[in-house]
């Protein structure tokens, strides 16, 4: 029995490893997308947290450049001041909100009207509807960016690679009219013009105003908008894992104590 039990355990372990191996090849591995540049983000790993200054700069890039075409319908200005994000001060949040003109109404005359934004307002979208967005962008619809960092394989690495991936097309490649070559975009033909260039966004800190920094910062910002509770999750996770680990040891000892003398040749 003990011999076959050992065999059974070994075989079972092999099966468990096999299952783990299958799980380790996630379904999306099949999509042979372009190679992405992998960065060392402050938020990756089990203890990863966002870099506040980076998120603030990222918001600056988003607001100055991306927001001209891309909506961010899931975000409110108040989120910019909430813990675990860029954590702008309350006053800054009010100022940032009030810079936007929000459509409200109808008023007592039945008309819609514009007013300065409040922290509880959603980010104002650049176009009223998808049709208008298409019309203004040569037929292409700039996607909403709220959860973009979770909606693409590679997440922030993809966004960074895309923003830094513009370049000269290979000589043998046929481009459709109005498309631009991008090495990170699936199919390498993207409708979006190269959005970033050195110096186009002012930074309030002394971070060099380079395309590379803009791409990094806005990718980090988009990761935060996609996963605003990441810091809370990582912090709680540490506590829960330590608790469960100690609990597991205690349960193991309890099991051994209760089963003492019941397992083996000891009647």
């Amino acid at each position, binding site marked *: 029995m003990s011999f076959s039990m050992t065999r059974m355990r070994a075989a079972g372990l092999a099966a468990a490893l096999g299952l783990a191996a299958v799980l380790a090849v996630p379904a999306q591995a099949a999509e042979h997308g372009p190679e992405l540049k992998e960065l060392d983000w402050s938020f990756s790993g089990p203890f990863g947290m966002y870099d506040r200054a980076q998120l603030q700069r990222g918001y600056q890039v988003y607001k100055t450049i991306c927001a001209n075409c891309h909506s961010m319908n899931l975000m*409110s200005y*108040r989120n910019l001041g*909430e813990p675990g994000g860029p954590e702008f001060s309350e006053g800054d949040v009010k100022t940032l909100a009030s810079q936007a003109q929000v459509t409200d109404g109808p*008023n*007592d005359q039945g008309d819609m009207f514009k007013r300065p934004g*409040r*922290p*509880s307002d959603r980010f104002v979208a650049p176009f009223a509807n998808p049709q208008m967005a298409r019309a203004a962008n040569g037929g292409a619809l700039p996607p909403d960016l709220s959860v973009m960092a979770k909606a693409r394989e590679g997440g922030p690495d993809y966004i960074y690679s895309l923003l830094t991936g513009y370049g000269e097309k290979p000589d043998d490649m046929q481009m459709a009219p109005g498309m631009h070559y991008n090495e990170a975009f699936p199919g390498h033909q993207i409708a979006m013009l190269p959005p970033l260039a050195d110096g186009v966004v002012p930074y309030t800190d002394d971070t060099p105003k380079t395309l590379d920094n803009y791409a990094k910062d806005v990718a980090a910002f988009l990761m935060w908008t996609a996963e605003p509770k990441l810091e809370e999750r990582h912090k709680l996770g540490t506590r829960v894992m330590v*608790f469960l680990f*100690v*609990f597991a040891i*205690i*349960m193991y*000892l*309890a099991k051994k*104590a*209760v089963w*003492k*003398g019941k397992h083996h040749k000891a009647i």
Partner: protein
Amino acid sequence: MSTSITEDDEDVSRRDVILITAGGFAGVLGVASIWPLLDQMNPDSSAQALATTEVDLSHMERGQAITVMWRGKPIFIRYRTDDEVAAGKDVPLSELPDKVARNANLPDDAPATDENRAAEGKEPWLVMIGICTHLGCIPDGQAPGSNKGEFGGWFCPCHGSQYDTAGRIRKGPAPENMAIPPYAFTGDTKIKIG
């Protein structure tokens, strides 16, 4: 639980300590997991982000009342006549069932005088949450010709609570004066609630 006779007492007490610790851990885990299940029902952060309502009062005339919505609640705004203000002022505090103003813009213990109920420095204006403090119905008395009750203010059709021209409870089962929300005049005829 059966214990074999070969076990010595030390083993038994060691085992008991381990089992009690394990039970404690299970208890902590169980109780800690209940909190998220309860807390998720509290107002979420979008509801907590205080919405404000701005109201333009320029079209209102003396004696007129309007109802606006703030955080899902009806706000009664009445531009009272001089008679109504006088009626509110005439009542001695001792006659009031509820003697505090219930005005979010004043200290908690401010007495329920007509001044303390009305807008600061603009006594004809009364702005309050139009919800009966008995069981939450909306009292009549806003529309012209609707039942204003014995005291010329509001009458709650559900259980007969009567409010005076300053929105104070005078008669019936309601325990408190109708509440005054946080608000301020942002111009001569403009208020911002919240």
